[in-house]
């Protein structure tokens, strides 16, 4: 029970983290130059952007949940389950970030998800 709860946490917190980070980076604006002062200005915007900070927090929760569950659960169970993040992220990107996800992108994402599962059980 605890194992599935933590795997759920890895998938959900990881997906929410990625979605919020993506939202934050769109709000900050495109990083179009690697000029030192521009990067410094972007970093300053990043440190005050709640979406970005929340997203990094979500990623951290997912990472520590993963480390915790891996202390007792087999990798061959945990890794395939976390491949679900690809599907969750795409749903989130479509619904929350209003990204245009056509059939080709869905098919590609599902193939990547299936491949990631096979890779960890193979």
């Amino acid at each position, binding site marked *: 029970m605890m194992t599935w709860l933590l795997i759920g946490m890895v998938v959900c917190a990881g997906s929410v983290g*990625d*979605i919020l*980070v*993506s939202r934050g*980076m*769109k709000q*900050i*604006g*495109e*990083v*179009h130059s*690697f000029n030192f002062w521009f990067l410094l200005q972007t970093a300053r915007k*990043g440190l005050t952007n709640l979406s970005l900070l929340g997203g990094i927090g979500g990623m951290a929760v997912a990472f520590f949940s993963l480390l915790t569950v891996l202390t007792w659960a087999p990798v061959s169970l945990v890794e395939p389950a976390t491949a679900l993040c*690809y599907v969750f*992220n*795409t749903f*989130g*990107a*479509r619904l929350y*970030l*209003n*990204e*245009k*996800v*056509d059939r*080709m*992108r869905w*098919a*590609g*994402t*599902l*193939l*990547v*998800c*299936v*491949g*990631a*599962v*096979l*890779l960890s*059980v*193979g």
Partner: protein
Amino acid sequence: MKLLPLLLLAILTNSIGNALLSHGMKTVSPVLEACLATGNYPGMVLPVLTNPSFLGGLTCLVTFFLLFLTLLSKADLSYVLPVTSFNYVITVAIAAFMLKEQVSPVRWLAVLIISMGVLLVARGESRTVTDTEDLPVSVELAEEQI
């Protein structure tokens, strides 16, 4: 900077970072086990932090994260995430050809499926263009003034 070089750099830094981190942790694991057995927990920090593979891996993974953020400022999340998963393919290639690890046929099949998935996603548009993004800046300003 264009999207493709950034994507390639992100994929490479992620794969190399994972391989170096794994190599580093395997190198220091006898020392770590000895420290655990004797209860010398502070003694575990120095061998890890002075291991060149670990430090190299950490540097690569931090670089990957910064590149990931840069990519997300330019392209859709639903594009960046599947395309950067090509690092799985590079990692298996490093494991098979450089670290001489045994890779099962199922894993090679997985590599093929992931590559096909990445190809399908990468062929499409990288960023959703919203109605306001279509407008030239001057029109947006004019709308704000109205």
